[in-house]
């Protein structure tokens, strides 16, 4: 009964998604964002077929070759093909985005919905904790976590996830506050549903769309933070073809061989710009309900 009421008020998720995509494709900027992200996913999936060389294969006969000929984007200081490394790097980027998102979403939802629904002292304490995390720039806090955990790609992902849940929690809490006194929640409570059940079955599904959108908006920052950590040598370790780490390695040869840093940088720029443009479009596509967030 409760579920039916809840469901009837929102259109089918696929229909909603399709509406959003249609809205986004109307604007040239967000359409560009969507297309770049689609290309990114396709390249990551088909990496073995798109890459022209083995991303790890060193060829000391052909180091620092300029772009053109056999190597589309040239070769690096160990003769590895830069184009192939960038292609394989899409997988690392997508992995980071995916892992951060699946950690951040549930943590943010759990903290936000419980503190919004339970309220009172619990809410105050949880929101104070959230504020403490929010009082740092995300890169600095990630740096501190990675420093403590030790540099590696996995730790970088953990650190980024630890620093990016607070905005999600705040959003989920704000959403929860608008639903907690709704009739359907009261009905569920009168039927004797436990607090956990109400949060999980009645509140979380309502917060999900806006949380998913917020996670998408956050992806550009995740990419830039991960690249920054990689650049500082605290993220993915060589010889992994992570774009930030590639730029760090190419730095020494930058003056004579510009292609070492230029192409990975353009790749980062394109992907994070795409997510930012998409986010900008999503913001316009949101329904007015989303406005009363904090």
């Amino acid at each position, binding site marked *: 009964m409760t579920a039916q009421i809840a469901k009837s008020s929102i259109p089918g998720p696929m229909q909603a998604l399709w509406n959003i995509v249609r809205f986004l494709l109307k604007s040239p*900027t967000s359409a560009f964002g969507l297309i770049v992200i689609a290309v990114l996913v396709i390249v990551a999936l088909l990496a073995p077929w798109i890459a022209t060389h083995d991303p790890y294969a060193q060829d000391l006969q052909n180091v620092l070759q300029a772009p053109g000929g056999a190597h589309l984007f040239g070769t690096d200081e160990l003769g590895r093909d830069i184009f192939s490394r960038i292609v394989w790097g899409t997988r690392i980027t997508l992995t980071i985005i995916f892992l951060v998102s699946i950690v951040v979403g549930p943590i943010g939802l759990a903290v936000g919905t419980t503190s919004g629904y339970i309220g009172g002292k619990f809410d105050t304490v949880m929101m*104070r*904790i959230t*504020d*403490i*995390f*929010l*009082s*740092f*720039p*995300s*890169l*600095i*806090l990630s*740096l*501190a*976590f*990675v*420093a*403590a*955990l*030790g540099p590696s790609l996995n730790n970088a992902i953990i650190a980024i996830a630890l620093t990016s849940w607070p*905005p999600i929690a705040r959003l989920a809490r704000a959403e929860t506050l608008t639903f907690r006194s709704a009739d359907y929640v009261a009905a569920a409570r009168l039927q004797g549903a436990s607090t956990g059940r109400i949060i999980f079955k009645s509140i979380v599904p309502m917060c999900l769309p806006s949380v998913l959108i*917020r996670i998408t*908006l956050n*992806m*550009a*920052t995740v990419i*830039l933070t991960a*690249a*920054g950590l990689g*650049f*500082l*040598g*605290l993220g993915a370790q060589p010889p992994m073809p992570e774009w*930030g780490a590639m*730029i760090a390695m190419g*730095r020494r040869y*930058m*003056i004579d061989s*510009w292609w070492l*840093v*230029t192409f*990975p*940088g353009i790749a*980062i*720029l394109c992907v*994070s*710009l795409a997510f*930012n*443009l998409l*986010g*900008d479009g999503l*913001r*316009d596509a*949101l329904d007015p309900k*989303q*406005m009363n*967030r*904090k």
Partner: protein
Amino acid sequence: MRRSKIARWGLFPAAGEAPAPRRKLNLRPIGAQLFTVGVTLFGLLVLTFVIGRMMPADPVRAIVGEDATRETYEMVFRQLGLDRPIWEQFFIYLRDVLTGNFGLSIRTGQPVIQDILHVLPATIELATFAIIIGATLGVTLGVIAAVNKDRWPDHLVRVFSLMGHSMPIFWTGMIGLLLFYAYFGWVGGSGRMESFYIGLVDDVTGFLLIDSIIAGDWEVFWSAVNHLILPASILGYSSSAYITRMTRSFMLDQINQEYITTARVKGLSSRQTIWRHAFLNIRVQLVTIVALAYGSLLEGAVLIETVFAWPGFGQYLTSNLLIGDMNAVMTCVLIVGVIFIALNLISDMLYRIFDPRTR
């Protein structure tokens, strides 16, 4: 619909940016706010303490070295207070921090806080220049975008500022060096000045521009400006995205109000209505935005300082990260947190002082 879109621009900051200060518009009494700040500061200390204790590296080994005897190890272990219960350790940490004792740097052997105070002016100089550039750029573009809403200048500004927000700043820095230093030779390269000037000017304030004026050495001054301009522009550009977006939404809020229509009907030119009426009304909001943007500059400064070999706070932080000097790292993190909280507080206060409605 139009209004709702505007409100969304303001109320829903882009990912990774500080939350819009609009949230801060409430009328909490100052006392309650100071209490909140106190609690946040305490939380900050707990967080840095926990991160500091989480590390896998052995702090004792870092001090005594690999081949110390068991006795020396035990002694240092006790000296550091690591044998005490974790609660006691935390209170000792708290006491130390409150009395200004942040421990010694493993690398230099000096108090960490002294090292940091030594490098901080370089970063403040860079960040201040950057925020001047960023605010000028951001406010101008924001007003242009708002006045031309949904026309091509608006779209152009949107793409331009999103570009600045999407660029990996360390990469922009390198490309900037490659183009403007190596290729065109328009600006100075890495560091704060040409290496042959180092040591010529007395270190009075730590701010090179001021020090060189005090010393009356204009060659050093111009060398410093030459080296400052590129990293500051890049940092400023990346921070202008946020300022542009907020300026645009504030301006749109004003432009749609009736007093603007009245001013136009009265016969004022559109330039006068925009700059004399609408813009003057968003000054206060802009000041708070710029204060917050100044804080987020620190993040970019960490990366840009690494690229430009800028002997500032960011480079100090990253170089100590790589050698695992946790005392130095945690103090840096603590200081960034405190700066952030302070900037939030200041922007809040400014609002109270300048906006008569909040009284």
